[in-house]
């Protein structure tokens, strides 16, 4: 588990928070992704463990800015729907 989070603006001005799952592998030559049971499992040949940056590149909608932050730095969720991207 990572303490990192990826934040990016939603289309309506809000903020989405991506929780990365690092139990995935990526092949830099082919760009192919491969799901793993855990980060400790053997990697398929030619693959490496993915990073938070890899997941941001894959799952943040194209063209949107994003930031990688610590989860503990996010605001309290009591007013979650009012979060704004500034």
């Amino acid at each position, binding site marked *: 588990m990572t303490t990192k989070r990826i934040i990016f603006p*939603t289309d309506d001005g809000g903020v989405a*928070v*991506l*929780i*990365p*799952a690092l139990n995935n592998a990526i092949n830099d030559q082919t760009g192919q992704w491969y*799901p793993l049971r855990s980060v400790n499992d053997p990697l*398929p040949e030619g693959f490496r463990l993915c990073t938070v940056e890899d997941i941001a590149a894959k*799952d943040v909608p194209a063209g949107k800015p994003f930031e990688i932050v610590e989860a503990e730095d996010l605001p309290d969720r009591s007013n979650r729907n009012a979060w704004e991207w500034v």
Partner: protein
Amino acid sequence: MTSNILRFDPSGTNMLNDADYNSSTQRTNGVVPGIAQSALHNKLFHQTSSVAAAAAEALSNLGATISDANYSAMVTAFQNGFASAKALSGVEAKSADYLLLAADKGKAFTATSALTFTFTAAATLGSGWYCYIKNGSSGAVVLDPDSTETIDGATTLTLNPDDGFFIYCTGTAFLTIGRNASATQAQQESATVTNAYVSPGRQQYHPSAAKAWVNFNGTGIVAIRASYNITSVADLLTGLYQPAFTTAMSSSDYAIAASGNGVAVNSGDGAYQGPSIYSLATTSFALSCGSNTATRGDWPLVCAVVFGDQ
């Protein structure tokens, strides 16, 4: 038996026993002028001729004709015998089509890309020719015997990725040993083949198998507890979460079994509404978790399992 190399004094008559032969000074220092010890020399000729006769008999049993009248034929027979018994000297990688030759007897090959191994005619390779072939590529590797000759009864044989087996020649055709074909993704998806085994890397392609699953905490600092084939969960709004697939689905016509608890992970009081499917896309899906009112709410336990075609 076609060998004229015979054992000397095979019955052991008038021969030193092993202990006396071992301690004989004429054995250790060589004979000296004088009266020859017949028992000593019988032992000498008996031992040396036994080794020679055994080697000759073994070669003749393999089909060679051994005679002290044809020394060069004996040398050839020994060479062939040693060549047949040689250990594998490594695995040869092939990246392009290749014609298997008589000189490839006993070799091991691995294909590093999709290609075809063609065979020299079985009669030329001869009965007893053999090799090992493995498909180390992600494509199909084809074995194609000469003309109408067959391998395991077929004119061609395809190795799926990671398949490998022993191939030998009968003199008229080719047969395999240890051929257990692994199922391809297409075979797993069609789910009808019954003579291929399922490998761990492809079992999930069967239509009955789950393609992804996730268990996460949607409250506080939203966090994934465990997952498979999920690269991230997007916390979009209160009670609205969007997991993304590692390997995408082939269409958005897939099924999700979702459940959870709006109160606590281990609570019997979880009669909140949902989670319902908010959206389905090939790369992700979104779940909407309800509260005990008309609004969405964060859930401490959200679980989803996905079935469909990848």
